[in-house]
């Protein structure tokens, strides 16, 4: 099992000028990032299950820049049917990491369906991703991260992580992003030179 924070610390070295959709990993990424204008944190508020399609759309719109998504397995379970769409369009700039804690951590840790016996990398490969990987320890992940990031997308990386279960009422949880979605978009467009 990997720790979410360790994954992000390892990835930071390879970020470059990639656009990052951090998802639930924003709780750590917000403190690690040096290019917040290129980060697209959109939770909460957006509908669960759509993050992978959002990042996919972003990758299609910005084909000359890497787009890195930190997805979660609960989200992905709601969106498996976007995987063939991604494979069909095959954006070479799309890097899809799935942080698999085997549970719905934000609702108290209930297991996702078939939590311990599902192989997300196999599903992605079956959908048509050319490059898929799966790791359950930090050392193997760190050794292979350069190869993952230097090769073309779409690439899919399933990572077994330690659950960080939340039981506090939602209203009492610490907000991970201080920017609302409109501010995020404006910052992004400014950084990308898109006229608003």
């Amino acid at each position, binding site marked *: 099992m990997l720790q979410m924070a360790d994954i992000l610390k390892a990835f930071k070295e390879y970020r470059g000028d990639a656009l990052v959709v951090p998802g639930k990993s924003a709780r750590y990424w917000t403190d690690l990032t040096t290019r917040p204008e290129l980060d697209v944190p*959109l939770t909460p508020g957006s509908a669960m299950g*759509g993050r992978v399609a959002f990042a996919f759309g972003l990758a*299609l719109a910005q084909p000359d820049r890497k787009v890195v998504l930190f997805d979660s397995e609960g989200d992905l379970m709601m969106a498996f049917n976007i995987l063939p769409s991604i494979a069909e369009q095959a954006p070479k700039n799309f890097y899809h990491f799935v942080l698999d804690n085997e549970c719905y951590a934000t609702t108290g840790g209930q297991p996702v369906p078939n939590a311990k016996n599902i192989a997300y990398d196999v599903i992605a490969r079956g959908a048509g991703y050319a490059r898929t990987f799966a790791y359950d320890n930090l050392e193997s992940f760190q050794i292979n991260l350069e190869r993952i990031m230097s090769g073309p997308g779409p690439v899919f990386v399933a990572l077994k992580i330690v659950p960080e279960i939340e039981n506090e009422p939602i209203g009492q949880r610490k907000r991970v992003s201080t920017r609302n979605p409109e501010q995020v978009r404006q910052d992004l467009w400014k950084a990308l030179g898109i006229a608003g």
Partner: protein
Amino acid sequence: MAQASEALLNPETVLAELKKNAVSHVVWLPDSETNWLYLLMKAEPSLTLVAVGREGLAFSTAAGLYFGGKTPAILIQNTGLMEAGDSLRGWALGLNLPVVLIVGYRGWTRHGVTTDTAAVYVERFLHAFGVNYYLVENDRDAPRFSLAFEEARKTRRPVTVLVGDEYHGFNR
């Protein structure tokens, strides 16, 4: 003959409206009779077609395209629109997405009783979300596409075009 042709919604008309409004990507799941429109769109170099397997994902895909500076449109059927309610809420209304939804109005009829519940509920659904819509039945209604695009840009909200006719040409 001209009158008979104008009484239909020709797929060429829809494509012309997409081009006129600078649509870059059509995120879509096939409607009942969209084959001829599909072939036209596929042959149009200024458009990228992005097929999705479920309508809700069309909204988040379109949101990503918009955040990346592109101009997507969504082409789905009314059944799928209703299935995609939470995505419409979160990824379109929640992100101020100025997108036009071109929605096949399956089951709609101007005459007699509408029995298909896909048609019965769709306008009520749009009212519930506060999403404005325009009905397009034939080529004479084509300017309504541009009205929808203009309204979406101005209000930075999704706007719907309900297509109350099938796209003719499926059997050409």
